[in-house]
């Protein structure tokens, strides 16, 4: 191993990167564009739902209940229609949720009976429906608890009383889970894209063959080739992490060492995958297509965009074979829950195994294939 030859190769790589202003711009525009997309569009939370309240009871209790809905960020009470107008308002999309307080609610409560409250949700947007109805039942539950406490009654409420408490991300801000996932995704995209392209490019141009009549060794070549892009990827993810923390207000509860270790292992895995792509591809187009083939299932199945738990049970095991799944779990754990190595030991072991196997396979294949 010669540090001199590795440095020489890195210098050449930076020189070429500087001569390619388009690639350079893409490298820094891509994470910013992704941040904007994921931070503002995908992660848009269910808030400010247009709400109609149909108060048929017209008592202090019903007014208090309406007030507790109006006080939350999630609902904006825009209408007080009659019961018959509800369907029309829903159809036109003027409201997405309606609260119906039946006549006799206060009377029933005073007699110690259960009083049913109607929550009508527009189900055409499933996310609005599930999140909206969830918020509504939380508000009603809290209203109940407050009322009983104020009356000095410590009652076992009749029936099952579901109390949902969201841990670690109480506001359910999806940006908080998106940004750590995005950090991992960017590492994967940029390293795989560049590694896949860079080595194939040298093969296409024949410069790789010329390289092998010099004393450079395959390992030196790989290190010299990979390091500049690993540095570029690190800059990218720092941009994403810092913008995420300071602009989008993503809390960072964890230890830097956990994040660094997780990203390091994931970088090795990505480098290995990029190399394997470039070894089986003969042209840059092939490498490009192959990369898309790997990226799409990674994004869909890893829990980056869709929660793994909501996938069909038969599909879920597939996510175990995707390195991004484990990287995202480590990053989300570290960012949001402040989990340490102990809590994430399974994830670290699996990701470590991926890194060893994939990177090892890439090195072994490089020794054999680069010279062909």
């Amino acid at each position, binding site marked *: 191993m010669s540090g001199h030859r590795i440095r020489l190769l890195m210098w*050449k790589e930076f020189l*070429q990167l500087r*001569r390619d202003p388009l690639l350079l711009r893409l490298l820094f525009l891509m994470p910013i564009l992704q941040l904007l997309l994921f931070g503002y569009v995908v992660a848009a939370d269910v808030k400010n739902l247009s709400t109609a309240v149909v108060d048929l009871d017209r008592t202090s209790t019903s007014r208090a209940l309406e007030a507790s809905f109006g006080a939350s960020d999630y609902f904006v009470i825009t209408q007080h229609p009659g019961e018959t107008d509800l369907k029309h308002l829903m159809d036109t999309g003027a409201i997405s949720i309606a609260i119906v307080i039946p006549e006799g609610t206060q009377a029933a409560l005073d007699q110690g009976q259960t009083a049913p409250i109607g929550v009508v949700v527009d189900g055409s947007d499933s996310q609005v429906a599930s999140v909206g109805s969830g918020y509504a039942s939380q508000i009603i539950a809290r209203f109940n608890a407050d009322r009983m406490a104020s009356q000095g009654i410590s009652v076992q409420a009749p029936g099952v009383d579901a109390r949902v408490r969201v841990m670690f991300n109480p506001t359910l801000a999806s940006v908080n889970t998106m940004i750590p996932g995005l950090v991992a995704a960017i590492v994967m995209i940029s390293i795989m894209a560049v590694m896949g392209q860079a080595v194939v490019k040298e093969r296409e*141009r*024949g410069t790789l063959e*010329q390289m*092998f009549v010099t*004393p*450079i060794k395959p390992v030196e070549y790989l290190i010299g080739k990979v390091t500049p892009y690993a540095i570029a990827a690190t800059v990218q993810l720092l941009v994403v992490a810092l913008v995420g923390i300071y602009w989008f207000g993503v809390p960072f509860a964890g230890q830097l060492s956990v994040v660094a270790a997780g990203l390091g292992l994931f970088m090795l895995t990505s480098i290995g995958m990029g190399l394997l792509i470039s070894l089986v591809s003969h042209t840059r187009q092939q490498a490009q297509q192959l990369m898309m083939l790997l990226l799409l299932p990674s994004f869909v199945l890893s829990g980056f965009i869709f929660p793994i738990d909501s996938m069909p049970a038969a599909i879920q095991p597939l996510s175990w074979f995707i390195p991004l799944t484990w990287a995202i779990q480590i990053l989300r754990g570290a960012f949001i829950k402040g989990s340490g190595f102990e809590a994430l030991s399974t994830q670290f072991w699996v990701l470590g195994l991926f890194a060893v196997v994939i990177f090892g396979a890439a090195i072994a294949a490089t020794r054999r294939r680069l*010279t062909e």
Partner: protein
Amino acid sequence: MTTTATAPAIEATGLSRRFGDVQAVDGVDLRIAKGAVFGLLGPDGAGKSTLIRMLATVLGPDDGDARVAGHSVRRASEKVTPLIGYMSQQFSLYPDLTVAENIDFFAKLRGVPKDVRRTRMMKLLEGMGLAEFVDRQAGKLSGGMKQKLFLASTLMHEPDVLLLDEPTTGVDPVSRREFWRILAGLHRQGTTVLVATPYMDEAERCTEVAFLESGRIRHQGSPAQIKALVPGRLFEVTADDPRAALAALQASVDRPSLPGLLSVHLYGDVLRVLLETDDPASVHAALQAAGIGAEVRPAAVDMETAFAFLAELGTAA
């Protein structure tokens, strides 16, 4: 080291390489003396590139071995590479780096000392008429200039053996002549050059040539020896209607009407006829019988004719 003054620069024994179903190089034995300019001739797909790539250690042989500059390409490739310069058929420098950056990069990789790098580069570039383009990106040079730059880059570590795979293919005639002038200079300095070429006029400039076909060496020797392999006498026939004349003579091959006619080819408007005898009277007679007016003159065998006839006679034999 067992290398003596008489040891060959390149010595291949039974060198073979297969790609799938194609036997690209099939048991090639080759001895190239030090200081030779050795031409490797043959049609596309004959195995020239595969042979050169094995000698350059970038491709491993399936069978056989070769000693290049005194070392085995199989067992000691790391000792071979510092002593050779290899120009692949494809231009293999970085198009987005400048002339100077390309030369510097590969020279540094090969460990050329800093104090000689600059002077050697300028000397090479001046000798090739590239000195004014040092800061131009390699991708923006013309085809001929690219090849000269590539050669300059492979000469920076002063190799003993140069392996050139069709360095002048796709290069204009002026640049080709210029390129061979540089090779002649290297020859005078004692560098051994192995050059693959599809151009027969370039073969004439070699001290020795080998004709490769379907992965095997068919003929080998100095250009004079190769030409001497052609039997009989060569005549050129200029006819009013060359195609009719060709048809008339081809019909007579191996017939008693025209004894001693070995072969006939059409080059442009001129027929080249190979006869066993020194007397072209039978050709005259045959053409007159077919009603074709023609003039017949004796001609000297050149490399192009030699290989055309040898290929034909070889397949007939």
